[in-house]
């Protein structure tokens, strides 16, 4: 990194030095140009002035021609650099009748000689030096030219026209005064000019047919030293191009083997050019030397720096390496690694201290985590105990511990270890009190609230309250001190074993399903009261429903119906109803098992959703055996051989038919048939004693009610008895035989058979009254 920065700094320093040198060279060129111009002007300006003065005098005075020589000689005498001079007279002027006249005096061999230009062969008035001044009507310098056959020198001519104004005529050209200037002195002046320590220079006339060149300073020697093949001509084109585009200083490549700086200046005097060429290598030699010196110093400095850094770095990296080895021990889980004991106050010391702090905080964190895990394990253990306590609050009926008139089965699967669902049932007053509940929320708060609800239910339920009052009282207690704002839904019923009447009340709970013996399923249409613990004075409507032996009431919490499958579909009431319909006749525990299996199979992960509770209560009074028949339901009633037994049998017939919503008149008819046909049988069996028995089977099909009476008494066909004569006077009437007469009259069909030493009397009625 340091090297590129250093190199960039070097380059900038070099560029800056080079720029300074370039500026200096430019300044030198300016200076040289102005010096040369001044030197040339010092010679030329006085001559210009003098010749113009002569011309002015000629206009003014118009001397005779004889005097012209005197004046010309005066010019030669006045300016030693004037090589020759003439006054050439214009002959085209109308007022002059004289012929051409142009005496020329020039220097030769230290004296002044005469030459007459007014020769026909010369025809001076057609020559450029004359015509340019005459036609331009103003003084003009000629381009430099080499005077061959004459002075054999480089010359330049200054021509000044003069005019006269004769009377009654316009001002007209009278002639031209000239002065030929020997350019040797220019060469000398250029050569004598002091050129800087480097470079080459030329003074050049404007580009023309023949150009005059004067090397400046010691040019020839320098050209030889630089590149002998170079001449002034080599740079002329580049110089003229620069002048054309207004550039005065430029690095030119390609003209010479090495690039050169070219400085070009135009002089006002005679429109001459000063051209300086400076080889770049020479101009920038100083800058390069500086650069080389700096590079050398830089390299040395760099080496020293690297050495110093290595020394310092070694002092840092050794302890850091030691640290790394120490910390590496932590990979094995040993956070008790020892750190080097350092008293350093530099970065290594800070790093070691930071690592020490990190190690200590890790150790603390691990200790805290271990404590946390222990605490969690304790909590898990406590929860497990809580769960088992909670389970113990629920009744655990063994199969043979069923109450006298019902078979009950239940399942409670909490979503967490402890849950907010509950169920309970116990026998009371020749009936079964049962309930199911669902506390809002889950987990420990719900479990505690559940315990409270469960306790109240047990205490108040045992006290003899019926469902609607029981719910009201439980609610009252809960609502009194419900600071946690929990609530619970509860469904509560009481099944009377004798009457088969269910009294049911609901505190915001789902309606239970009633599964009839034959397999039909319908919800128990129970009106709902508010959930428990919400309102202090809540009233719970009572629903009454007659059920038949073998019918099952299914209570459940929303963990069943709202168990969601992975695609979000809920288990739902429809699925539950269908499951009950298809379950076939079975014990409630089998039914509960089927439901739990179906729900858990449906739900991807039911434990994560909600508590799941099912309670099934099947009415199973003693002395009645329900079963399904091919086209309906049937109940085998085995009465005690007593008047009470007979009464009970009739009662079952009445209650079962009422549960099936048979019209009252048909119920009465059927009961009457049962009474008339059963009374004598039971009496006879009772009198016979021993192993006598009588049974009554009530079968229901969609269309018919069939009573079948069986007994193992002596063969006796009651239908064989003749019908009593009812038209006899009352005094002559036999009071017997009325019963069987009534049976025959009310039934649609009666049959008697003796089967397996038993009397079988079958009595059939249409289910709908005639």
């Amino acid at each position: 990194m340091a090297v590129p920065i250093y190199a960039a700094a070097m380059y900038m320093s070099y560029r800056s030095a080079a720029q300074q040198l370039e500026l200096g060279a430019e300044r030198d060129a300016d200076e040289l140009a102005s010096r040369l111009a001044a030197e040339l002007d010092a010679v030329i300006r006085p001559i210009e002035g003098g010749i113009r003065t002569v011309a002015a005098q000629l206009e003014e005075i118009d001397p005779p021609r004889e005097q012209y020589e005197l004046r010309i000689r005066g010019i030669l005498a006045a300016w030693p650099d004037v090589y020759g001079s003439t006054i050439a007279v214009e002959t085209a002027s109308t007022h002059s009748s004289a012929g051409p006249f142009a005496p020329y005096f020039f220097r030769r061999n230290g004296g002044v000689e005469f030459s007459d230009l007014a020769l026909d062969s010369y025809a001076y008035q057609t020559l450029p030096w004359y015509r340019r001044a005459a036609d331009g009507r103003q003084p003009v310098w000629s381009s430099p030219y080499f005077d061959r056959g004459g002075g054999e020198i480089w010359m330049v001519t200054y021509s000044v026209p003069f005019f006269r104004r004769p009377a009654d005529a316009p001002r007209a050209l009278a002639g031209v005064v000239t002065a030929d200037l020997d350019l040797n002195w220019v060469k000398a002046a250029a050569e004598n000019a002091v050129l800087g320590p480097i470079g080459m220079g030329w003074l050049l006339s404007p580009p023309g047919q023949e150009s005059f060149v004067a090397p400046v300073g010691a040019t020839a020697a320098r050209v030889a030293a630089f590149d002998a093949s170079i001449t002034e001509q080599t740079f002329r084109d580049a110089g003229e191009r620069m002048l054309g585009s207004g550039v005065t200083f430029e690095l030119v490549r390609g003209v010479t083997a090495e690039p050169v700086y070219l400085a070009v200046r135009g002089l006002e005097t005679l429109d001459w050019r000063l051209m300086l060429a400076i080889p770049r290598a020479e101009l920038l030699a100083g800058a390069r030397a500086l650069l080389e010196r700096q590079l050398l110093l830089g390299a040395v400095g760099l080496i020293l720096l690297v050495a110093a850094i290595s020394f310092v770095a070694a002092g840092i990296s050794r302890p850091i390496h030691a640290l790394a080895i120490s910390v590496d021990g932590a990979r094995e889980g040993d956070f008790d690694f020892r750190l080097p004991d350092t008293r350093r106050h530099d970065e290594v010391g800070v790093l070691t201290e930071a690592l020490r702090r990190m190690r200590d905080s890790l150790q603390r964190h691990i200790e805290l985590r271990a404590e946390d895990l222990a605490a969690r394990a304790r909590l898990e253990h406590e929860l497990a105990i809580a769960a088992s306590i909670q389970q113990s609050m629920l009744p655990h009926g063994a199969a043979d511990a069923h109450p006298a008139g019902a078979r009950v089965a239940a399942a409670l699967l909490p979503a967490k270890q402890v849950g907010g669902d509950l169920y309970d049932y116990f026998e009371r007053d020749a009936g079964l009190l049962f309930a199911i509940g669902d506390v809002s929320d889950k987990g420990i708060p719900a479990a505690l609230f559940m315990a409270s609800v469960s306790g109240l239910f047990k205490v108040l339920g045992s006290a003899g309250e019926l469902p609607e009052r029981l719910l009201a009282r439980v609610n009252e207690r809960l609502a009194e001190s419900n600071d946690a704002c929990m609530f619970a839904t509860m469904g509560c019923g009481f099944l009377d074993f004798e009457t088969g009447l269910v009294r049911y009340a609901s505190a915001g709970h789902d309606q239970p399903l009633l599964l009839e013996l034959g397999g039909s399923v319908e919800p128990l249409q129970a009106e709902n009261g508010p959930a428990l613990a919400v309102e202090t004075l809540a009233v719970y409507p009572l629903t009454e429903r007659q059920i038949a032996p073998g019918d099952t009431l299914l209570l459940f919490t929303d963990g069943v119906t709202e168990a969601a499958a992975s695609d979000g579909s809920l288990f739902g009431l429809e699925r539950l109803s269908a499951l009950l319909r298809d379950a076939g006749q079975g014990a409630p525990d089998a039914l509960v098992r089927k439901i739990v299996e179906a729900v858990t199979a449906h739900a991807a992960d039911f434990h994560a959703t909600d508590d799941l509770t099912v309670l099934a209560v099947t009415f199973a009074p003693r002395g009645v055996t329900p079963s399904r028949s091919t086209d309906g339901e049937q109940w085998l009633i085995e009465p005690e051989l007593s008047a009470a037994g007979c009464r009970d049998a009739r009662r079952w017939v009445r209650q079962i038919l009422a549960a099936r919503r048979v019209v009252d008149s048909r119920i009465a008819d059927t009961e009457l048939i049962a009474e008339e046909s059963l009374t004598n049988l039971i009496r006879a069996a009772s009198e016979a004693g021993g192993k006598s028995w009588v049974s009554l089977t009530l079968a229901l099909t969609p269309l018919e009610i069939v009573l079948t009476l069986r007994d193992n008494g002596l063969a006796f066909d009651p239908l064989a008895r003749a019908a009593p004569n009812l038209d006899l006077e009352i005094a002559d009437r036999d009071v017997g035989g009325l019963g069987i007469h009534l049976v025959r009259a009310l039934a649609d069909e009666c049959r008697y058979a003796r089967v397996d030493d038993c009397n079988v009397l079958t009595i059939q009625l249409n289910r709908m009254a005639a």
Partner: protein
Amino acid sequence: MTLKITVDSSPTPTLKLVGRLDTDTAPQLDGELNKVLARKGIKRLVFDLSGLDYLSSAGIRCFVRARKSIEPGGGTVAILNPQPGVRKVLDIVKAIPAKGIFASVAELDEYLDAIQQQVRDQ
């Protein structure tokens, strides 16, 4: 499911039966009938069945016994206002002649007046 019997002690007693009259409750009615029939000179016995829900042959026998006890002495047994189910049973066994069954007290009074008139005419 019981039978409740109320009897007025007039010379023309009415037995109001409420509930069920069957094998179980017939002895109860028999007991009351014994007491009523023990009175001398009973010419008319009315069974008010408007509150009777159920009637079986055991109950009918009670009515027949009452008729056998009173009618030979010129007395009359009337049934008042039986419910349809009960009426059906009565009709089947013809335990009481149709003319002895009345739908209302007014109908019964009219009938009794007619009988008295008949007696006076004789």
